[in-house]
């Protein structure tokens, strides 16, 4: 019997504004759990700090609301200690690409079997609208009243070059596309990154026009296992950030089959068989 959507919700009222795009991301996740008939006691949802990172409280799964920028290290510990349990990291753009960018690169590079969902609202919303790494140039926030100097960080390019083995982008307004992408990422073996375009209503980001600009890579027959083409498509994001008429690319940019870190260490362990296997044998090695 397939578990119902709502079985994955804790019933706690979300701390998000009415009409926040994060509600639809949560639905995409609970829909994914329901489709795969996941036991809520057999999945870890690990988050950082910020609006998006409150998500684990609204779900009925195992959840950890960790420190700002640090969900990935905790997720890695969970994966290594308990490899049978899937881990989903949900965090904001500030969490993953500012304070936690270091961890993002290493987790991607090592190809841990973790699904990272970035709730990308391109601002620090909880602390009342400061520029984040993904805010566009000229962004006016409370700490940049005359405009943000630098351009937005290209999360897709970073994830591909960092070594993630699945890199996708979707938009919280396109529910069916998002649901498919989230489900694909969840099923991917290795580090999957989903950048969800999720504008913040409260801080006045334009919303509806985004839908008309979306262009699905998969409808263009983008070859997602071609790294060069994946990076070429990713670099088009600079254009869509600065030109309000340019299409916004969504879909899976890059996907590669590779052993994940957890499988690699199991293999390495199996390669050296003559090591002592009990405390007594180990202590014998130190005997005078």
């Amino acid at each position: 019997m397939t578990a119902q959507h709502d079985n994955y919700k804790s019933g706690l009222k979300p701390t998000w504004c009415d009409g926040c795009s994060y509600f639809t991301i949560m639905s995409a996740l609970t829909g994914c759990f329901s489709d795969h008939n996941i036991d809520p006691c057999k999945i870890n949802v690990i988050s950082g700090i910020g609006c998006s990172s409150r998500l684990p409280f609204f779900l009925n799964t195992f959840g950890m609301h960790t420190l700002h920028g640090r969900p990935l290290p905790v997720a890695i510990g969970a994966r290594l200690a308990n490899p049978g349990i899937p881990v989903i990291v949900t965090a904001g753009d500030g969490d993953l690409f500012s304070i936690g960018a270091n961890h993002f690169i290493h987790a991607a590079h090592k190809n841990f079997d973790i699904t990272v969902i970035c709730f990308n609202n391109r601002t620090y919303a909880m602390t009342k609208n400061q520029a984040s790494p993904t805010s566009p140039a000229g962004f006016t926030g409370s700490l940049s009243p005359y405009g943000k100097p630098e351009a937005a960080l290209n999360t897709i390019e970073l994830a591909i070059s960092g070594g993630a083995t699945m890199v996708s982008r979707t938009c919280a307004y396109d529910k069916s596309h998002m649901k498919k992408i989230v489900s694909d990422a969840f099923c991917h073996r290795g580090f999957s990154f989903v950048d969800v375009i999720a504008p913040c209503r409260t801080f006045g980001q334009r919303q509806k026009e985004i839908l008309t600009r979306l262009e699905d890579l998969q409808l263009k027959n983008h070859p997602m296992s071609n790294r060069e083409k994946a990076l070429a498509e990713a670099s088009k994001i600079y254009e869509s950030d600065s030109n309000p008429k340019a299409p916004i690319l969504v879909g899976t940019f890059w996907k590669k089959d590779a052993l994940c870190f957890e499988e690699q260490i199991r293999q390495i362990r199996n390669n050296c068989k003559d090591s002592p296997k009990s405390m007594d044998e180990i202590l014998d090695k130190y005997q005078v």
Partner: protein
Amino acid sequence: MKAAGGDDFFLRILFSGEAGDGILSAGETLMDSAARLGLWTSVHKNFPPTIRGGFCSALVTISDSADAAPVSSFANFFFQLDKALLTISSINGTDNTKSFSLPYNNCAHIISHPPLKSSFALGLICKILDIPSELILSCITQKKTLGGENKVAFENGQKFAEEKFDLEYKSIRHIAGEKKIREKLVILDGNDAVALGALSANCGFYASYPITPATSIGECLSRYLPHLGGCVYQAEDEIAAIGAVIGAYANGKRAMTATSGPGLSLMQEFLGYCSMTELPAVVVDVQRVGPSTGMPTKHSQDDLFAAALGGHGEGQRIVLAAANIEECFYLTMEAFNLAENYQCPVILLSDSALGHLRSTCKRPDPYSILSVEREGADAFCDDNGIYKRYSFDLIRTPALPVPGISSVNSRITGLEHDPYGLPVNGAQNRAGQQNRRFRKMDDINEKYNHLQIWDTDNLNRGEADLCVVSWGLSALMTRLAVASLRRQGVKIACLYPKLLFPLDKELYLALQDFCPRVAVVESNYTGQLASLIRMYAGVDTISITKCCGDPFCYEEIEDALNKIFTESCVKI
């Protein structure tokens, strides 16, 4: 010359020179040979934070007693390999010293290859002390770093000793034959002992970032842990290391990280998270001279404040300190049980000198401390089957449910939370939760009083001339200084705490009853334990401190203890 343990036999051989001269290898080889002869022996290493260049020394102590001090300002044989000089002090207590030039100039190969100096010195000392040369040679070849030239240098050293020395030293071979130790001994350094203690305590996960002087804990664990079903992970920094430890603990594995001062600073935010979420974590801090990069290979005990009180907010922490190699082993085992019992972070303090102090010691018993097993989380659900871990009336925090094993799940947060673990801001809840988190620590000093070592010499209250407190490696040296003073008739009551924090007020008040003059010996500038004792127990203390990067010698402590009858603090 002062004897360490009364009439016990002991000899000290000091090798010094440039890093890269083979100083540490010489020390370890001589020590290994003495151990194989059946004697107690240790090597105290002092080295710079570089691969080549800088001053380096190895002090080898050989004794028929387990109590010989591993650190001393005195050596019977002092090889200055960089200056080609050997100074020999008389062993019979007279102050006659003789110096000899080492004839490197006659051995061209030594000049061209500096590590051969140490092989020459080993040949010399082997002859003087009558150590079977095949024993030293087999220890040399075990290291695999030495070729045929070393054997030549070794034999030249022996030849030189035969020609130049008619000193009558006791034959070590002879002493070993008389006093052979019957116990099973192992050779460990402090860091090995921590790693083996962790394995014995069923640690299943270790994460760390390379840092001197803690790295070798991970080196040992990475050899053995994977084959015991565990995992060793090299993280991108110390924040990630403690983060991974927390993730592992929340997923049912006992987990540990080891670091030094700079890493401990980076871990502070996550340690606060552990206190707030009531998650166990074991952190070993092999202290070095700080702040900042300081002197990375040098001994210090200056992280006690950071371990006990570091980080923002007010969190619950347990701080332990090991004074010798055996304690490194057993306290690591205790640390895991304390973390499990109190569901909070436990920080074990070691230091650079102890971590690298290599010594014979009794084979530790990996089964001597049973692992605490916690009841399943399912037992702590409310009437509706919802997990309720943070009830105000629960003094002992339940263990967390484990994903995939438990039939209930949980959400963990560093936000203040209600009895179900959900975030709330209410004033009454906050006061109640913080009160509960601190109250759960209340019984720790009663339950773990075996971690406080009393040595009152059968004195009654009020009878002592002096009370002495010391912790970590300084405590090991303090014991020897106290033994010496007692032989001179001074009445001393001592306390060597291994559980430093939460500080046991009653313990120090009881000590003060022996004598109001309480000296605290520790390797830092500000007297950190002395300050905590004043702060938490209200007991006035006299600080004896040393902060130069070298551990205390027991001779210095003895002198300092003599001075405190007239002075309010002593800095060495």
